[in-house]
């Protein structure tokens, strides 16, 4: 019972009321968050980069690191807790920040969010809520019992989506 902490490139699921999933300091990384309110199953992946083809070895070691391999693995883990109909599934995205004027190669936050939209679209899915972009870092947690997603950022307090 407690908060399960996910590092960069980690993914995990939880279904014990009283548990939660949390990941720190997303920066340009994106937390992909899944929730089934009927069965109270939660899932989260801390996605760092959009495309696993830049390093296939890293993708094998830590599939949650990349948007393409991470979506696949998180859904596979999520449905181990039981099938979930599309209408029941709630998907949220948090993170994907950038520095100011981060056009071109340094806009990894934007690329991560775009890659996740693309991977979700392949499955015929889209997010129900997002708190992405901006130029500040976020920490995010989901509570298994309520499905509430709480975000906080140093100096900016906390809020939920």
């Amino acid at each position, binding site marked *: 019972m407690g908060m399960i902490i996910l590092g960069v490139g980690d993914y995990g699921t939880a279904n014990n009321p009283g548990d939660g999933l949390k990941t720190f300091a997303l920066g340009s*990384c994106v937390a992909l968050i899944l929730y089934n309110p009927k069965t109270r199953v939660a899932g989260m992946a801390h996605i760092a980069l959009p495309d696993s083809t830049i390093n296939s070895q890293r993708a094998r070691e830590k599939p949650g690191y990349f948007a393409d391999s991470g979506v696949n693995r998180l859904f596979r883990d999520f449905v181990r807790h039981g099938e979930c109909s599309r209408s029941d599934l709630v998907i949220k995205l948090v993170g994907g920040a950038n520095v*100011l004027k981060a*056009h071109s190669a340094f806009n990894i936050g934007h690329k991560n969010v775009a890659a996740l939209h693309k991977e979700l679209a392949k499955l015929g899915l889209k997010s129900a809520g997002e708190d992405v972009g901006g130029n500040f870092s976020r920490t995010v947690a989901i509570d298994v019992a309520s499905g509430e997603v709480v975000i906080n950022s140093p*100096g*900016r307090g906390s809020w939920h989506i």
Partner: protein
Amino acid sequence: MARPEDIISSVRSIPPLSPSALQLLSLIGDPDHGVADVIRVVEQDPGLTANVLKAVNSAAYSLEQKVTTLLRAVSYLGEKMVAAIALWSCAPKVYQAGLAGYVSERGELWRHSICTAIACRELAEYAPTGSVNPELAFTAGILHDIGKAVLSEHLQDDEGTLTLDPERDARFLDVEKIRGGIDHAEVGHALARHWKLPAPLAMAIRHHHIPHTTPEEHLTLVYTVHLGDILAMMAGAGTGADTLMYTLDERYTEHLTLSDEDVQAIFLAMETQFEQARTIFS
């Protein structure tokens, strides 16, 4: 509120660097030095010798046989990591304290500094051949944010923290200027002078957020540190409230040639190499 000149004067409360740390920083910037020079500096400092041997025998390197000589230790660690160990142990007021004015926990500035350093060394490979010494870029990455350790207390409110206004506060250099009358790069430059750091390192500290203002001979090094700092923040290895509240200077393309894939590969290398480095300093 303290006046900017008082904040600059307060850098004198930070103890000087150890002679060995300063000599290592100077050596790294000297293209004619060899490993024997590095060992000569380390062996004159018993505390540093012990820390270097402890680091190489830590879990980070998983060596089968215990290393007992400085020659082998320096060979395994590399001189940049020896310099990092020297800085870590001789500047605890900078690297081993929390930054309440940045809402940053103890250890976060060191993590940010090491991640920036690793990114800088990787980025140096994308500058024209011979224009940036990767080892010097690494040490510049470790040192670039030293000013935050001095400025932090002047950014705190009465509750000992900092609260940003998301509507108004977009650039952290402006937040520092409003609250302290001076930004962390300017304070860092004062500390660099107090520490008598070599010129390239002092320039990297002073100009890492405004690299286009750097004197010509240090431009490529400073653009390297500018980008390394940004990559560390993007990876979530920032120093609290100011993380990502800075502006990318796109003129970096005049100094470093980087594709989208290159930037992502450096991002990945920084993360994996930090995992190894962190156990040395834990």
